[in-house]
């Protein structure tokens, strides 16, 4: 079915509700949300900290680390490092923990659909 067509046949709709209530799906949702929500809060606070320090803690940000390289530059580069690291962590997490359950559910749904 497509997103533009009117409501699907009842059997389809019932199947989705059934899957949504299944143990596998509950586990999938919990696993995924358990990673993406805390991680979103974490990177947002980490970024907000950087912006707030840039605005209000100029003395600290201006401290020299090595030569002309100061805390502000290191902090900024750490935002790059954390972005790359979170992207890598998520990709590893998703392919190990999320994809297998998602595939299993999608496969079962397809089989049920073919049988119906």
């Amino acid at each position, binding site marked *: *079915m*497509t*997103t*533009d*067509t*009117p*409501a*699907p046949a009842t059997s*389809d*709709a*019932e199947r*989705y*509700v059934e*899957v*949504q209530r299944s143990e596998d*799906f509950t586990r*999938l*949702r919990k696993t*995924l949300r358990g990673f*993406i929500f805390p*991680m*979103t809060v974490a*990177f*947002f606070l980490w*970024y*907000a900290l950087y*912006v*707030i320090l*840039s*605005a*209000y803690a*100029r003395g600290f*940000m*201006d401290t020299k680390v*090595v*030569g*002309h*390289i*100061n805390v*502000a*530059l290191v902090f*900024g580069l750490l*935002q*790059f490092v954390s*972005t*790359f690291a*979170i*992207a*890598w962590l*998520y*990709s590893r997490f*998703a*392919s190990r923990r999320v*994809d297998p359950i*998602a*595939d299993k*559910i*999608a496969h079962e*749904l*397809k089989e049920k659909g073919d049988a119906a």
Partner: protein
Amino acid sequence: MSPSTFLAAEAGDNTARTLTITLFLVFVAITLAITIWASRQTKTATDFYAGGRSFSGFQNGMAIGGDYMSAASFLGIAGLIALYGYDGFLYSIGFLVAWLVALLLVAELLRNSGKYTMADVLAFRMRQRPVRTAAAVSTITVSIFYLIAQMVGAGALVALLLGIRPGTTFLGMDADAAKIATIILVGALMIVYVTVGGMKGTTYVQIVKAFLLMSGAALMTVLVLAKFNFNLSSLLGAAADSSGKGEAFLEPGLRYGVEVADNAKQTFYNKVDLFSLGIALVLGTAGLPHILIRFYTVPTARAARKSVLWAIGIIGTFYLFTLALGFGAAALVGGDAIREQDAAGNTAAPQLAEALGVDFLGGDTGGAVLLAVIAAVAFATILAVVAGLTLASSSSLAHDFYANVVKRGQTSEKQEVNVARISAFGIGAVSIVLALFAQSLNVAFLVALAFAVAASGNLPAILYSLFWKRFNTSGATWAIYGGLIAAVVLVFFSPVVSGAPTSMFKNSDWQWFPLNNPGIISIPFGFLCGWIGTIISKETDEQKYAELEVRSLTGAGAH
């Protein structure tokens, strides 16, 4: 030749100008050939809107980079760093971190549950007509703001990049005529790319552009670093010395969150403004329609994930290059020479290219060659971005408004695609006219406004839609219109539009909102509107939510 005589030499010999135009024409010829090839592969609506969903994660990652790294990123951020030092870097960090929102919360779920446009997901479990109308209004508003900023930018750049100075002419055109000609040419080309090539053609244009931009920026970065024996600290030191601002040039505070002596109130506003800009940059990206539709060009959610990972790598690397380019321009060209060419610093990167060419490629000719290459890359950048924006808005107009609102879903694929092509033509024409009217105004703020609208209206609607069971039609329309109106109204009454020396209308004053960036108010307001709109309506469709949730998380039934 010293870098400060940038472009002056061409009054004598036209090497750089001829070469820039030749390289640009080669780019146009190649991309038009690709577009025509792509048009032969474009048969179905899925081909036109989503490039047949046939691109790989890497290809789409490059194309996302091509869509995202606009002239504002390349010329704008390099210029900001060259003139204001560290604060330009703050901008690029916001643009990069933003991709985590897209990666973690939006890309895969959108790919699994949508078809062609942002509204496919928003309207999935809602009443189609009100939600798709709202989504089309917001998509077109965001895209047109962005388009005008890019096209006016292109017009302003052409005179500088081709060295048409007051009093001189080029092909019989003075600087003003060249600006108008450029805006019309850019508009005409983007209409051709989109109407003829559809998403497939546009995607290849983005890939070619991303490759050229990354290569050009990488080459310049290596040359800048080589100049300083690959010692970052001595590059920074030279930039600070040459800026005339000393160590302050390497610290936050010259451009954003400026501390005004004896004016505690203005200092406070400036600092809040910095935070407001920061959150709009981070939350805006995942609500930009021309970025969202890119996720439909790959076959699966896993490929969408891969494309965001590639995009993060490419865009992150690019912003690290701009750091070297900006500080390199400050050190090797100097702030005064840059300001002399363009007060906003947009010519810092091309000027740096010329200086590096003189040093490394052998004298004036080398300078002219590298300048020409980078100027042509800058034009390619603008062209690719405007094509992406035109495609996003014409897709929404055809698929959301025409097919699902006007025709209530009763239309053939062929008709829909024809309407999309006509829309691209119409939107292109409207943008050309608006850009011609706006060309003498300071419209650089329009990009930041587009991000603010995307973050305030689109993002709340998308996140509620994907994650909140209770969310409904009323909530979706409230979120989109609420966020959109709040952002636009606040900017209209802000210092960027009136009441300040740098305003768009500097001789009028109806300003009462103290910040340049509305995000800190309009983003929470958009989320609040979505919540209020939802709870005041009884509508809820648990079955459709079950379907959306199962499909978005598992990929079952994906298009």
